[in-house]
């Protein structure tokens, strides 16, 4: 029944290694916190892609606050004490305490008593016009920096061998717009202010209560039926998509936590609310030609090129055979793979061997912001591009 170990020929890499263009056209938006001003003259597709390709550090340049309005603390690293001086239309702390949804959100997130209710109100107000400074724009930029720092340090230390594209995609799956939208809407219970002014008037609701919900100008992607759009150029720069607005509120709340309660509690909050969520990193990988990649990987690590050997099989002559093959480098078994054909089993063993390498996780990894961090190798895995 069991054949002796038979070597299945492993095709040598003969085709030219093509740089896949898909990777360059990645649409990652780690923090589109700042208002994106679109240039009406440029309509080419590349232009749009490069605009969406934004990381937190890029948005920092895009600040819309004048230096004269900014009071900078003596210690410039004291990020919590930068202040905007002309906050004339700010909601006072007393008024913020009167809004029930703000008070209950404060309690639901178990924020410390130092955390001001007015900051929470500010976090829920997205920029609506250029006259008012009372919005979460600056807060959300600050928050996205904090988030990307803590999430990337966690991933870099826990999975030091992840390729850069996978790393960025994984960071995005923790703190991208859609994940943060899910946090804001489906676990923190932030409401969106979708009622019209007439409805507010009719419902007899106090004027103050509108600040308890997330306020933003909704981006209209599809015009209503029977409405013809004539002009492309009129774009409100303050328009936000729903997910972006909710995500910015989460970023701002985290920035507020840093400001009021300090770095340590912001870190713990991110650990509890963001990094505790489930992301299956092994299913992020999508290998095009796993055999070739494994050959190259072994070569750069001075190991023998992969050999696939049949370990066991059943029902070769039936309609549902199963083969179990092992992927070996010399005498070392890298991974096994099972499948209903020899080819399927072979490819599966390659993919598992690659994932076993890339998803290496050190035991009890310390992140750089921990006090007892001793330094480590990062990105040891990516020796070729």
């Amino acid at each position, binding site marked *: *029944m069991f054949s002796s170990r038979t070597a299945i020929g492993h095709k040598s890499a003969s085709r030219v290694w093509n740089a896949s263009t898909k990777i360059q056209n990645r649409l990652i938006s780690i923090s589109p916190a700042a208002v994106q001003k679109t240039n009406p003259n440029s309509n080419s597709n590349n232009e749009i892609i490069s605009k969406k390709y934004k990381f937190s550090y890029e948005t920092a340049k895009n600040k819309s606050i004048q230096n004269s309005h900014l009071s900078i603390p003596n210690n410039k690293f004291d990020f919590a004490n930068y202040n905007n001086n002309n906050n004339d239309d700010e909601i006072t702390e007393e008024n913020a305490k009167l809004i029930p949804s703000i008070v*209950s959100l404060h309690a639901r997130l178990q924020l410390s008593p130092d955390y001001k209710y007015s900051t929470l109100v500010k976090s829920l107000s997205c920029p609506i016009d250029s006259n008012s400074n009372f919005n979460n724009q600056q807060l959300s930029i600050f928050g996205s920096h904090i988030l990307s720092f803590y999430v990337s340090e966690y991933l870099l230390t826990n999975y030091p061998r992840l390729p*850069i*594209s*996978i790393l960025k995609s994984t960071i995005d799956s923790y703190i991208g717009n859609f*994940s943060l939208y899910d946090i804001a809407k489906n676990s923190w219970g932030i409401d969106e202010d979708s009622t019209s002014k007439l409805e507010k008037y009719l419902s007899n609701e106090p004027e103050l209560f509108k600040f308890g919900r997330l306020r933003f100008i909704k981006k209209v992607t599809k015009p209503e039926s029977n409405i013809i759009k004539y002009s492309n150029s009129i774009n409100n720069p303050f328009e936000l998509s729903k997910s972006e607005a909710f995500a910015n509120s989460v970023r701002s709340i985290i920035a507020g936590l840093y400001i009021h309660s300090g770095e340590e509690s912001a870190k713990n909050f991110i650990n509890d609310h963001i990094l505790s969520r*489930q992301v299956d990193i092994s299913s992020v990988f*999508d290998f095009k030609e796993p055999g070739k990649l494994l050959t190259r990987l072994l070569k750069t690590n001075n190991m023998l090129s992969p050999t696939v050997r049949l370990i066991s099989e*059943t029902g070769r002559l039936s309609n549902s055979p*199963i083969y179990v093959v092992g992927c070996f480098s010399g005498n070392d078994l890298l991974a096994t793979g099972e499948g209903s054909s020899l080819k399927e089993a072979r490819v599966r063993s390659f993919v598992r061997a690659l994932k076993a390498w890339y998803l290496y996780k050190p035991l009890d990894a310390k992140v750089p912001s921990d006090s007892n961090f001793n330094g480590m190798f990062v990105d040891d895995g990516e020796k070729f591009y």
Partner: protein
Amino acid sequence: MVGVNFIQQVSRARNGVGAFVLPCKRITITYCNFGGSSQGTRDFLRQRLPKFAKQYPEVEFRVLEKPGKHPVLKGEYTTPNTFTSENGDTIKQICVRKWNIDIVENKLKLLINSSGKKLSKPKHTVISTNPSVRGIWSPFYVDPNHRYKI
């Protein structure tokens, strides 16, 4: 990296791993100011509501007068995709017609402690999003001497 593409994911919530956020975010109590069926609810509003609401700061309480209607307790939840109201929020409603003050309080506790999900009989003893620790069973785990010969 060349040869490695990615499949974008969205992280999945695991409430209680790390932080626990109470799913119930809002309770709306509607009552009639004269009807006999609202007697127990009115008693609750007068005597116990301030103290009760203080015990649950996570929940926003709303009181709504609806003359001529039976009293209803409505809970709104953050949990998505179950019973939904007009604005897409998950809700659960309990009619407390003719119930006395203690039952009204217990029903409120029931609403607050609920996850907002529809009640259903669990089909599996363990429900988890994690992959199995044991892995997938394979016919090769069986001792070769006891295997069925094809």
